Each structure stands twice: as structure tokens, then as C-alpha cells.
């Protein structure tokens, strides 16, 4: 079975963000980069499926600058067989439709039986790319899955809905699923697998070969939201802070009465 998993490299969300010089994205200097958290679940599920179906071949795809290869190596060390890096220095300027179209252009004649993506990225959070790829390829898709089973050309998945309810959904392959947090427990790459990953095929394709559409939207401006909380911010020694907080709780709440 041929399987594709699409991943994105994103900044660590705990980072101190700054606005870029153009004012249309965050400044990418001095950030720690990692695999989009949702995609870790997608990679793990794809690797589990590869292990279930003998003779499978699992490709990991990532769009971005040279540095995304570091994140791709993690996916290869987790168990992907080969990598396709779509080289694009300005991937962050592309909208979900362009990104989905690029991936579709790559995937359209490759006969992938299953495609895995994260349900959204942690930075843009549009939750569009996975479903768009499936629509462009004319495949069924199930989004936001927290449980996945494959047998005999059929997927049984559970979608996570609001309030902790799940919807049980079934479809035939070829198909695409978008993965929600908690779907599985992403494995840590072992040292031997990290070494092995270095020898795996990592093909680079220039984005110009795959981009055939135009963006439908642009980020006009990016900025920090105004602080609306207006809450008190306290810093200092832990013991002093504890005294201050107890005083506040006695004044403002009834819980220490």
C-alpha cells in the first residue's frame, strides 16, 4: 500500500514572537522550530498502518525552506520510508488553497491509497489543507479523527465533536484523513532509527514545478492583539508571590473564608 503523510514545520508556540519587517507575517529569526503537533499524530498513524500492511511504502512530504528537512528527518526516523521536500522559501505567504494545490499536483498520479495530514497547523490554524487535497483529488475524507482502523479497503474512524462526543464514520479507500491531537501516542525516534533515517531517500522538488494556481487570499497585516484582560501581572520571589496572592484571594474571592 502506498501511503502519504503531509507535515509542516512550525515555530514552537512558546516562542517570543515578533512581527516581520513587511508586517504581514511573524519574524522567523530566533525561533525554535518543530513538527506541527497535529502532524506528529498523522505520522504515527501512517507508520502504524505501514507496519500493519506488509509491503507498504510511506512517503513524508513537507513544503518550505531547506531547514524543514530537519523536521522531515524526525518523520523518517519515526518510520517513514522516503521524503519529498518541496523547496519553497516563501511557503508562509501561500494560502491554504495554494498549499493544497501543490500537494495535489505532486500526489495526483502516485496512487496513494491513504493520505494523512494534521487537522490544522499550529501557526495558521486554518484547518483547510487536508480536506482541500481530498476534494482536489476527488477522494472521500474524514477530518478531525481521534480513532483510526483500517481493514480490507475500509476505514473506520471516530471524529471528535464538541463536548467529547464522537461520530463514527466509515469510508472506502483511497481516502484522506486529518488527525486530531490524542489520536495515538507518537513514538520517540530511537537512536538507531535516527541513524538509519540519514540514509533514507530525501528528494527535493522545486515548488515552481508544482504551483499552478493563484492565491485567493492575502494576509494584509499581522499584529499583537490588544490586552483586554487588564489583569494584574505579578513577578518576583515565589514566597512573596504566594503571600500577595493569598491577600488578593481573601479580598476578591470567598474561597479562603
Amino acid at each position: 500500500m502506498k501511503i502519504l503523510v503531509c507535515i509542516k514545520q512550525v515555530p514552537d508556540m512558546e516562542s517570543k514572537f515578533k512581527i516581520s519587517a513587511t508586517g504581514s507575517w511573524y519574524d522567523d529569526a530566533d525561533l525554535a522550530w518543530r513538527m506541527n503537533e497535529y502532524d506528529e499524530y498523522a505520522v504515527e498513524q501512517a507508520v502504524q498502518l505501514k507496519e500493519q500492511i506488509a509491503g507498504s511504502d510511506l512517503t513524508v512530504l513537507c513544503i518550505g525552506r531547506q531547514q524543514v528537512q530537519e523536521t522531515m528527518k524526525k518523520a523518517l526516523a519515526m518510520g517513514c520510508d522516503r521524503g519529498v521536500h518541496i523547496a519553497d522559501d516563501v511557503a508562509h505567504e501561500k494560502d491554504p488553497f495554494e498549499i493544497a494545490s501543490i500537494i495535489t499536483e505532486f500526489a495526483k498520479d502516485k496512487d496513494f491509497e491513504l493520505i494523512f495530514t494534521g487537522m490544522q497547523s499550529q501557526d495558521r490554524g486554518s484547518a483547510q489543507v487536508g480536506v482541500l487535497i481530498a476534494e482536489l483529488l476527488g477522494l472521500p475524507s474524514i477530518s478531525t479523527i481521534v480513532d483510526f482502523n483500517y481493514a480490507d479497503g475500509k476505514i473506520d474512524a471516530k471524529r471528535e465533536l464538541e463536548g467529547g462526543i464522537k461520530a463514527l464514520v466509515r469510508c472506502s479507500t483511497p481516502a484522506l484523513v486529518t488527525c486530531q491531537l490524542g489520536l495515538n501516542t507518537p513514538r520517540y525516534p530511537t537512536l538507531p532509527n535516527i541513524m538509519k533515517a540519514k540514509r533514507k531517500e530525501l528528494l527535493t522538488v522545486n515548488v515552481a514545478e508544482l504551483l499552478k494556481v493563484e492565491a485567493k487570499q492575502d494576509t494584509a497585516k499581522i499584529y499583537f492583539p490588544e490586552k483586554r484582560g487588564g489583569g494584574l501581572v505579578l513577578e518576583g520571589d515565589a514566597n512573596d508571590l504566594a503571600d500577595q496572592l493569598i491577600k488578593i484571594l481573601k479580598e476578591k474571592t470567598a474561597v479562603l473564608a
Partner: protein
Amino acid sequence: MKTLLVAEYRDGKLLNSTYELVAFAAQTGSESAMFLVGDNSSVPQYNGTLYLADSGKYSEFNPAVHKQLLLDVIATEKPDMVVFSHSSYGWDLAPRISLALGAAQISEVVEIDAGVPVAPVCNSKLRRQVKGNTAQTVITLQAGAFGLSDEPSGTPTIIEINTDTAAQTEFCGYEEAEASGVDLSKAEVIVSAGRGIGKPENLGIIEELAKALKGEYGASRPVIDAEWVDHSRQVGTTGQTVSPKLYVACGISGAIQHLAGMKKSEFVVAINTDKDAPIGEVADVLIVADLKQFVPALTQKLSA
């Protein structure tokens, strides 16, 4: 502006989020019509045209078929904007519609600033104004961002709709939320642990603080997903919605899904090493400190 509002229905009931769509139309001064795959017995209180498809016939979750039903209505109504909730139903169906229409889709809109939709970036640490450059636009609204319409009223003019499009997926029913061992909604004090606790061994200090405050302990999603705490203690969109007298968020960054579950708390204390964490937006007091030092210090003083 003319909008088409995509209402939601689940397990035999109209979802309340429908009235957030109505509020959005009112706030933007838009003319609107509504689309719903639901049932005649549970229609929204709404003054306008409701295009209604029967969920008994087309199922509550059936994206390929709902897509066609909606596209047919869009062809009739010709709205400038198709408006969904940014929910499991909305973010699944919206891309299918935007692609078919060749329209820009702007996700999780929190406000309209001088006519331009604004969406969060990087876990709400940043915002961006997004300009669609297509004639029609599809947007999904962040839960709660536009409030509910004041007092829903009215009776819609119902137009029944049908399609013979084939399904691509089969909906096999719902699995209810796990029976909750702990009813956090009744707790007067909740101390919650987030990713910032670092490792499961640190949960002890959270439980002890909860005990010292005579409350319960809860957790945010990453802690639940890591299986450090049972799902029954999850606070947030996919867990419990709580409104205690005091909520103490320990190492919780404040993803919108978590905030939605706790922002009705009367008093919120956040403990975080990151001064810019979005939890600061809803906190009455933000303690910028390492919770591993601060929490035991607080517990000790409370117990003394």
C-alpha cells in the same frame, strides 16, 4: 452584504451556535438566509428564509451530500458570504464549499475590522487581517466571538430542499462522552494543570494545591492526551465547561478550546513562565513564575 448562514444540528437538536451566526449577520448589518440539514421539529427562531434538508434522509454527517445541498442553495441565493461556525461540522464542510465556489475561505474569524476579517495566528498570540480576493467569501466564526443574538425570535419561511447526490462516507452513529467520574461543573475551586507542568510527576503539587483550596483538580488537553490525567477531568471544548468561584490555571497557555471551557469562572489566577501566554487575557491575576516553585510555596502557606 448578503450572507448565507450554515446552521448546525446534532443528535436531534438544533445547536445553539446557530444564534451566533444570526448575531454575526446582525452585527455586520447583513441581509441573510439560512441553511440547515435538520428536522422540521427543531427549527431556529429566525426571521428569514430557511432552506431545510431532512437529516433523517441525508444523515447528520454526510459531507459530500451536505455539500451539494448547500451548493444548490448558494446557486439560488447568490450570497456574498457563506458563514459557518468554526466547529467540527463547519471546518469540515467549509473547505469543500470554498473550493467548489472558487472562493477564499477565512477560518476562525474573531472580528470584522473595517470590513476585513481578523483571524488568530500562533495559538492566539498574534492576529491577522485577511483579505479575500474572490467575489464570494467563505468564513468560519470562532465559537463565542460574536456572542449570541439577544433574544432569538421569529418564524422562518421554510423551503425544503433535496438532492440525489451519492454519499462518499457512511455515518454510523455517535459515541457519547465517557461517563464523567468527576463533575467539575459543581466545583467551587478548580486547579488545572497544563502542558507547563512538564512531567506527570509534577501532578502531585497540583492535586495538593487543589486540596488546600478545598477544590478539585482538572487539566487541559495536552495533559489529557498524554494520559497523565483521566479524560473526565478535562476542561475545555471537548471536555467540561466550568464556572467555579476560583480557577487556577497552572502552566496552561490558554488555547481557545481551553478558554471556552473556563472563561465563565468568577476569578482566574494563571501561573505561567510566559508573560505573553493567551491565558493572560482572561486572568485576573497572572503570576509569572515557575509553577514547580510557586505552587508548593502557595500550598504550604495555605495549609499553615
